[in-house]
């Protein structure tokens, strides 16, 4: 079913989006809703369908089922109009090595019919002004990624689509890209849609996430609402057996991990302090009490595990 008028404020919207290669569905029944102005982290393991979805969003592939729109423009039917609103960074090495960074940008600038001043603007945004006159063949991967990002920013697109922009970068390169990408919505007003398997990086950048598994979008929404609320409290007590009894009596289900115990905590610091007091009063000397906030990796692993379990059950049935 093609999306009708895009819901207000959606930069990307897909309904029942699917792509089949031969007999295999690479992407199936994907309903994306990417809020305008958000930084949307598109997650999933290799082969989950992230790149295929991105290629469908950019009109490089035609959907087998459903449709995708960019700011309400159906990509299959209004590719040119949708492309005018979109900048993309798909492949870091998709540059002409024999040309300078400036010449690479100028090639795209002329194709887009933009003024020459655009090049200086985007080079400044990715902090590449100093290296612009050097041949791209001499660039590091991080510099190529930033050049690719500068190219995607030409013309001030309202939507930036990036496929694994931090892939293969060293820690410095990752930090630089993170710094630049995080600033993009504020500096440009653009919606950022990026795929990645670097969960900790996405967690630091994204406001929203979508999780792909076996070609299907299994979860999406604001990162804050999707994250588990419970904090993981790690306790190392002198008498673990007694500590388990005390924690169970307090209504918790402690789990033994290494030389300690963990319990899920939803009541914050006050609840942690109360548990500590109970343990001490019960004669358990508490050697360690540390809280670990839930992170994207926990969520990701949980969802992947749930899906794998469901798939196994389905296959068994």
């Amino acid at each position, binding site marked *: 079913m093609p999306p009708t008028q895009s819901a207000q404020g959606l930069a990307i919207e897909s309904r029942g989006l699917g792509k089949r290669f031969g007999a295999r569905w690479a992407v199936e029944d994907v309903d994306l809703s990417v809020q305008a102005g958000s930084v949307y982290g598109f997650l999933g393991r290799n082969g989950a369908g992230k790149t295929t979805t991105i290629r469908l969003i950019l009109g490089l592939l035609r959907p087998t089922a459903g449709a995708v729109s960019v700011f309400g423009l159906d990509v299959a039917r209004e590719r040119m109009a949708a492309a005018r609103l979109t900048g*993309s960074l798909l492949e870091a090495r998709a540059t002409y090595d*024999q040309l300078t960074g400036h010449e690479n940008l100028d090639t795209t600038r002329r194709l887009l019919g933009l003024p020459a001043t655009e090049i200086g603007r985007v080079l400044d945004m990715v902090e590449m002004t100093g290296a612009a006159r050097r041949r791209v063949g001499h660039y590091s991967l991080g510099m190529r990624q930033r050049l690719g990002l500068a190219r995607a920013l030409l013309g001030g697109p309202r939507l930036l689509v990036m496929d694994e922009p931090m892939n293969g970068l060293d820690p410095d390169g990752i930090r630089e890209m993170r710094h630049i990408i995080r600033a993009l919505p504020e500096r440009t007003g653009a919606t950022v849609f990026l795929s990645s398997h670097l969960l900790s990086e996405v967690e630091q950048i994204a406001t929203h996430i979508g999780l792909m598994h076996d070609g299907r979008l299994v979860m999406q929404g604001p990162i804050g609402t999707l994250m588990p609320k419970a904090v993981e409290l790690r306790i190392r007590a002198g008498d673990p057996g007694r500590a388990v009894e005390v924690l169970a009596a307090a209504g918790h289900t402690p789990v033994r991990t290494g030389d300690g115990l963990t319990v899920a905590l939803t009541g914050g610091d006050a609840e942690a302090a109360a548990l500590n007091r109970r343990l001490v009063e019960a004669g358990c000397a508490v050697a360690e009490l540390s809280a670990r906030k839930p992170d994207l990796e926990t969520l990701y692993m949980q969802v992947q595990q749930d899906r794998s379990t469901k798939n196994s059950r389905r296959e068994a049935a």
Partner: protein
Amino acid sequence: MLTLIYLELRKLKGSLIWPLVLAAPVLVNIFVYMLATRMPPLPWTDAVAQGIGLWCFFIMPMTIVALSILLSGVEHGPRAWDHILALPVRRWRIFMAKAAVMMLLIGLMGLMLLVELEATGMAVAAFVPEKAFIGDFPWIRGLTLTAQTWAASLFMGMVQLWIAIRFRSFVAPMAVGLAGTFVTVVGSGLSETIYVPWAMPVAIIASKTVEDSALALQVGLWGGVAALLLMLVDLSRKEA
């Protein structure tokens, strides 16, 4: 379209295409010089026809194979097609610019060959005066043959470019180009060969009748236009 052609040419900076464009006509002229110094003195008209014939018989088809691979490789190599095809530019214009550059380069080599033929004639006259070409350099005849063979090469050029862009591996255009050139070489003299795109340029010079020559030009030109249109439609619709 001029902007796109300019950008295509700029992408060739530092490419092997330029040495190829320079070397291919020189190679033909070396053959012409060697033949001229081993044969009775030729009239300039025959020498020019011989030079252009040598060019069309083998060097031009092989050069077109290499050109098509190198031109498409500018995008295949760094996987730049995705970037270009995601831009708000009509896809047919992108492929049309590639085709235009290909034909421009073939035309440029044809003109270089002609200019270098005159230089070769001067060299023969200087170093082996008894073998000097007879008469004046036939510019009109030379330019006419160059233009006709260039127009007839459109069919071969578009088929080669189409295959080279469609397939990332260079094996497909190379295999097709070698097969086409092989048929041209072994089938030379057969009237049926003029229907093979790779043989059409040489058929303009080597055909037994004026009618066959004209037919080779017509089929090469209009077949090339048809191949170009089909290529533009196919590549524009193809998923990247």
